[in-house]
């Protein structure tokens, strides 16, 4: 497209007949850009949550975390599950672009299942903790931060379910699948944010333990 209007060659007609794509065209669509701004502002939100956690940790006289170091095994497995779901969401769009509708539906369904598995395991972890939201400062931070993320995962799963439905109904082909691109982008964002939360909540206590 870069040759449509060349500012250094004034002799050219400004509005030459040049076929432009029409409508909601992938990364040229308004929705893609809108989703990027949404990610910027939501990313900041999680940034401020992590800032609050680190600020309060740096100021606290308490033994941290009060109930001992977090267990890593289940958390790491859950992280792997969430990240793998991103792969299948990505795969769904690839299949749609090649008109492999059944594979696309299967792939997206698997992505949804993995997302639900993440939420289930997270709920098991929540239940295993001896403390709650209002027990102490660490509990407030832990449940608020993971709660915010869980809410985003839940919204993401609903988005994926609708994408699954629309894919199954045959709404999308290789040209018209901006919704898949945009919804997938949001899901990848939710997954990447988890890496930061996991590092902050599960890994940094080990780091701080060595310093103190």
């Amino acid at each position: 497209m870069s040759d449509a209007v060349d500012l250094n060659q004034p002799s050219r007609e400004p509005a030459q007949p040049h076929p432009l794509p029409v409508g909601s065209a992938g990364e040229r669509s308004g929705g893609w850009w809108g989703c990027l701004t949404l990610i910027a502002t939501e990313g900041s939100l999680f940034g401020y949550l992590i800032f609050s956690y680190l600020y309060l940790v740096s100021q606290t006289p308490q033994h941290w975390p009060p109930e001992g170091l977090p267990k890593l095994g289940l958390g790491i497995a859950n992280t792997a599950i969430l990240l793998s779901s991103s792969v299948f969401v990505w795969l769904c769009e690839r299949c749609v672009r090649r008109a492999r509708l059944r594979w696309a539906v299967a792939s997206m369904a698997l992505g949804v299942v993995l997302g639900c598995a993440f939420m289930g395991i997270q709920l098991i972890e929540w239940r295993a903790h001896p403390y709650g939201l209002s027990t102490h400062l660490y509990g407030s931070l832990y449940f608020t931060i993971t709660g915010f993320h869980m809410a985003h995962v839940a919204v993401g799963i609903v988005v994926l379910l609708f994408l699954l439905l629309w894919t199954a109904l045959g709404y999308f082909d290789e040209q018209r699948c901006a919704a898949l691109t945009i919804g997938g982008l949001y899901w990848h964002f939710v997954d990447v944010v988890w890496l930061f939360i996991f590092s902050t909540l599960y890994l940094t206590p080990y780091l701080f333990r060595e310093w103190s």
Partner: protein
Amino acid sequence: MDHKTIGLRYLVTAFLFLLMGGVEALIMRVQLARPNATVLTPEQYNQLFTMHGVTMIFLYALPVLSGFSNYLWPLVLGSRDMAFPRLNALSYWIFLFAGIFLYASFPTGQAPDAGWFNYAPLSGLEYSTGPNIDVYALGMVLLGISTTVGSMNFVVTLLRMRAPGMSLDRVPVLVWGTLTASAGNLLAVPSVSLAFFLLWMDRRIGTHFFDVLNGGRPLLWQHLFWIFAHPWVYAVVLPAMGIVSDALPVFCRRPLVGYGPVALATVATMAIGFVVWIHHMFATGIPALALSFFGAASMVIAIPSAVATFAWIATIWTGRPVFRVPFLFFAGFVFLFVVGGVSGVLTAAVPFDWQLTDTYFVVAHLHYVLLGINVFPVIGGIYFWFPKFTGKMMSERLGKLGFWVLFVGFNVAFFPMHIAGLLGMPRRIYTYPAEMGWNTANLITSLGSFLFAAGVLIFLIDVLVSLKRGKPAGDNPWDAPTLEWSMSSPPPPYNFAVVPWLASRHPLWEGRIDEPGITVPMRSQLDEGYLLAQGREALGTTALEANPDVILKMPGDSYAPFWLAAFATLVFAGLALGAWIFAGAMLAGCAVSIVVWLWPERALIQREPVAVRDAGG
């Protein structure tokens, strides 16, 4: 759904809030006019100064600028609408509902009462058991949604919806200002929304973020609040400075001196604005190293501000000024900006700030900068664009009278506050004893505030009279250079029948002035270009160079934004009342609205015309 209608609604609503905040201020000035007055009880006074601050800063200052930008952006950018017309409607409805929400507890005498920055632990449950703070906290989260979606719309509109040829170095300064403010908001608003949400959880759920007894830290509140609120201060002034940078040169009959430096100064102010929040917290016992850094950063802000100021002065100096009403307001703004800027540099010095923090000196400073940089350009901007909005001119005579009453009233009201502050008068006291030596300064301030209010009244009368019987304006009454003046007044719903093609910053002044560096004579094309006549269409262009990239299908009218805003407001009402099931049901209502909104439509070419079948394999 038309951006012009939404823009005007924003302007009118924001002005109504300005009047409410103004009446609150006048009642306070009656109370403070003389010592030991008993017009108000301390509780009433607390609620009034809190609601005055909240109203002016959150419900007037930014929304009024969003109104200008919503109306003007597509016109000055050569576009048919904003990037997301329905999101635009959502932003307005939530703003309106959040404003009503914040005022909901006012009639029962339980309005927010801990100051607009609402420090913990005063705002905690221990010291404030009523619904006052809950309303403020939840209302601010709701308002944050409006600000955020509005900002997203501005950012994407700038990146995608400019007319071909309008590269980034050709957009008006107003666009730079709003773009910078919007980008800042996207990064800063989550901070305050989170702070208010955590505070509400501390109060109603029993968490411990600001609770000292359980290891929480009240200073976390101040950090989160000011990380947001300092960039916000620039968000409410930069677009207004943009108005001046665009409109002042029209009355100097020359282009703005130093377009590039002014645009860069705008962005630089916001960028530095993100690392100065601690200067609101100098007196909180923060380590000396942090004080030095943030003090120095605060002083650095003076540099981009001075760049812009000298650009305006040079524009007036080297131009041929025409002393119409908008010129008076813009020139008055430059003067007030200098006064407010100087007192700002003074308080950036840490020892001086220790002396003056929480005194009337700070109150004087913030009113000079906020009224000086926001209200004067806004009123000047309305005089300037009123002909475009309505097709009618406003009165020169009433306008000049109004300007001088406002200008004199403003200085009589706010200058003595500096002196009261230097004499040690603390802010937020509901009365004072007679022997403190503050009587004269306060009396003069109160008189000046009523003079200022009279000026606002004259302006409003002028607006109403001109609406009825103003002289017809024509397309371009000021002989201005930018695209919005190339069309009829008021503009048609589709703005541009033909998508224009830009070759310079001043498409309507081409031939009279020439930009340096362009040797080949190039002219903008306003009557030849893309026609885009198949339904609602708009042209998407590339982010930097504004080359045509895609033809966008624009959505039609829809009720989804209104319902989403209504359900969102009810969610917060449910949370405020502790009606959890109701809040959950309303949240489901939000979800349904969003699904209806985003369902892929054939008309927008978001899905295939014929259902796709599997290719096999």
